[in-house]
């Protein structure tokens, strides 16, 4: 394993430079955090931090950071700090610095010289200088000096007030757009923080192979935590904005909920959440999205009924019966092609192929089949992987008992692959449950649907003497689903106020319910995978 070689860096007598480097890294991380916060408007840039205007404070910190980084590099070059620098900073760093300085030089020139193509030679000069600087010098100078200089230059413009909180740069486009300080200052701060932080981390590791490892790891860890941060932020934000709408008029207590009858036994629920238990009608105290939830459930059921047998069957044939050759290759190419086909194209296909065949109207059935087609490649790919993962010993052992091939498949191979198939299906369902584009063209209903019009598929079946002999008006009617409902709420815009008392709350609550439904599929899928994996390890 690659991580097994990780050793603590033990070097004697290196405490002070390391302290400087870690301080620089701390400043850089702090600057990035402040930059992000001010992008979100949490730290307004025209305000002050501790009596100093924010822009000036950021500029000062950037200059200090740049000076510290350059100091580390120069100290190492003069031999005050014990390091192991490589002969140069490496190709990636060289190209990166050249690019950053090209942009910086070009931007400055086009700001100062006002138009023309003067930015091109100016950028080329600064970029070329940075390139030569990085490429020609030893690593300790080459990877710190350009980075530190960027921080000092940018910090200097903030510090001297060249770019103040009210600075605006009209880009002069035909469609008008301007660069404002409220965006540029935080963005430049984050970029400088990343650059100088990387240089400081390299210095902390003592340059050379170890230093580069430190620098790269810093960036990669920042990246990974940013991704998780974004995810957490998205979910938390939707939850915070959505929960008030979801809980409007919700009550808990015995006998307050609607009565549900299961197998003839009526139970009165002890909770009432009108948002998910009501439709929209004039008489309701609180409006809700019940028809959309029911619609989504039926869509998913229909898609699973269509896609899972098809997908699993095809996977069985491909892994167990077919010889590797033209056919399997064609099927693989087709499956992957289907997997990457844009969802709106499935919608178009459903619109031209399925809708005319199911009565000419947009209908629940058409939506089901379209989503089933989308689910099919996901099921096929994951089932195929699960079947391939079943060890050949199982098949041999079963065949040695003298049973037929099909019996082996039925009672040995498929049960062994079942966990993988189930997990893959659940994750695939989570994906299609949130799809809007295909159902937009195949089964759209109204924006606000009253509760009694929630689709009742089971009760809708009827037999007729006309071909095709089985009819189900419920299946052939347009209904609504959560993702479409959200889309309709967005596009409806102002007109919402007539139907719902608090449209914004209603929108966020719908988004939150949709997110809950989809993420619960994912939670079940990921949970199932852990469960099966742990059980496998025990055996």
């Amino acid at each position: 394993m690659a991580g097994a070689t990780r050793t603590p860096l033990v070097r004697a007598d290196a405490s002070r430079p390391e302290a400087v480097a870690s301080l620089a890294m701390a400043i850089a991380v702090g600057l990035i955090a402040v930059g992000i916060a001010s992008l979100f408007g949490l730290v307004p840039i025209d305000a002050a931090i501790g009596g100093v205007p924010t822009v000036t404070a950021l500029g000062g910190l950037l200059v200090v950071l740049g000076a510290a980084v350059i100091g580390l590099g120069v100290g190492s070059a003069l031999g005050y700090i014990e390091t192991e620098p490589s002969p140069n900073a490496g190709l990636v760093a060289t190209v990166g610095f050249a690019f950053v300085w090209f942009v910086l030089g070009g931007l400055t020139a086009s700001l100062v010289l006002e138009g023309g193509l003067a930015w091109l030679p100016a950028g080329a000069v600064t970029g070329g200088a940075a390139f030569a600087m990085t490429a020609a010098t030893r690593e300790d100078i080459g990877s710190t000096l350009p980075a530190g200089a960027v921080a000092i230059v940018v910090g200097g413009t903030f510090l001297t007030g060249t770019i103040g909180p009210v600075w605006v740069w009209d880009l002069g486009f035909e469609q008008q757009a301007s660069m404002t300080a409220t965006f540029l200052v935080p963005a430049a701060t984050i970029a400088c923080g990343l650059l100088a932080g990387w240089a400081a981390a390299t210095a902390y590791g003592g340059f050379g192979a170890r230093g580069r490892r430190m620098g790269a790891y810093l960036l990669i860890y920042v990246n990974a935590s940013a991704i998780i941060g974004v995810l957490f932020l998205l979910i938390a934000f939707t939850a915070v904005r959505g929960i008030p709408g979801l809980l409007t008029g919700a009550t808990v207590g015995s006998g307050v909920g609607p009565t549900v009858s299961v197998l003839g036994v009526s139970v009165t629920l002890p909770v009432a959440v009108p948002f998910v238990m009501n439709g929209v009608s004039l008489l309701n105290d609180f409006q809700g999205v019940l028809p959309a939830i029911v619609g989504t459930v039926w869509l998913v059921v229909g898609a699973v009924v269509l896609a899972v047998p098809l997908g699993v069957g095809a996977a069985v044939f491909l892994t167990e019966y077919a010889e590797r050759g033209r056919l399997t290759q064609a099927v693989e190419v087709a499956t992957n092609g289907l997997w990457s086909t844009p969802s709106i194209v499935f919608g178009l296909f459903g619109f031209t192929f399925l809708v005319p065949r199911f009565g000419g109207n947009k209908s629940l059935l058409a939506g089901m089949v379209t989503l089933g087609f989308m689910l099919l490649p996901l099921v096929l790919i994951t089932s195929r992987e699960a079947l391939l993962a079943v060890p050949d010993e199982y098949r041999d052992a079963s065949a040695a008992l003298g049973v037929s091939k099909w019996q082996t498949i039925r009672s040995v191979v498929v049960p062994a692959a079942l966990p993988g198939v189930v997990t893959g299906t659940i994750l695939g369902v989570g994906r299609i449950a949130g799809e809007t584009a295909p159902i937009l063209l195949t089964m759209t209903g109204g924006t606000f649907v009253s509760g009694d019009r929630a689709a009742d598929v089971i009760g809708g079946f009827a037999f007729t003497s006309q071909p095709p002999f089985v009819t189900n008006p419920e299946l052939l009617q347009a209904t609504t689903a959560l993702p479409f409902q959200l889309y309709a709420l967005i596009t409806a815009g102002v007109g919402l106020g007539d139907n719902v008392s608090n449209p914004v709350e209603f929108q966020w609550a719908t988004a939150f319910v949709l997110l809950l439904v989809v993420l619960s599929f994912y939670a079940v899928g990921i949970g199932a995978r852990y469960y099966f994996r742990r059980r496998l390890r025990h055996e």
Partner: protein
Amino acid sequence: MTVALVASLVGFLLASPFTALPVALFLLAAGVGWVRYQGLTARVLTFAMTIATVLILLLITVYITVESIPVIRYETTTVFGVPVPGLRLFTETRWDAVAEPIRYSMVPMIHGTVMVTTIATAVAAPLGVAAALFLSEIAPGAVREVVKPGVEILAGIPSIVYGFIGFTILSPWASEQFRTTGQGSYLFVGIVVGLMALPTVVSVAEDALSSVPESMKSGSLAMGTTDWQTMTSITIPAAFSGVSAAVLLGVGRAIGETMAATVMLRGVPQLTEPLYNVFYGQETLTSLIANNYGNAHGLQMDALFLAGVILFITVLAISIGSQYIEWRMHRKLGGEV
């Protein structure tokens, strides 16, 4: 049984109400076969299911292409006296379905799709590859167990929810920041779409990186390199084609992304002025379809199908290309394909 199945398929294609008869016959035949010759029936059934997969792709290709032919005919231009069908779609930039002259140029939408995809790739490719490297090589076990499902969940957040957050939060903010008239910019649609393409890049690139044989990495580490050196000089070069296939698939996702683009863009099919003005967002191929399907008739509807055909062919080519790259990589690493 096979005859009945084929008959029901034909019936379905012809939209005949008598389709139910062969379907019933097929079910009957399958039922009888299941009881008497279970093995053979299972084999035939699974074979039919396999064929169905290929058939669906073929049906999609045929049906959306056929629908788009009238508009290709309508937009015929003569070049040196030779009429070339469909050429005017790409030489003019006017899309107007109402006022004369009625034109269905695809250029503004292709421009929009290219802008969004470029920005999205600039976001998703470096971040995705770095995250894949983190997951497959660097992260300690416990961190990995948290980050990996996190990336999967990121893929699971419905695109309309991204679009909703972008529409209500990001677009007004961007409009205020950059002092644009009205809301909707390719820049932020690109960033959001890049975030949505990220999980695809991460998972495929991670597969590629972890398929590099352990012996190659150990050999490098035994020479006394740091693990970062091993990654840059052994793992990434060995998995390079797989990683580029991952980026390609991410590009494919970004091209096909619909809902976020639809709700965040302006929905006016025209070019931005100047062409590289990313602070304005007009229309992409996908959002064109989603915005106009409701009130489109005749030629305009066919033009929407043409947009679908362009999308479909581009993405299919990308998919096949990335599969070819992956196949070559597996062969190079000496594993079984």
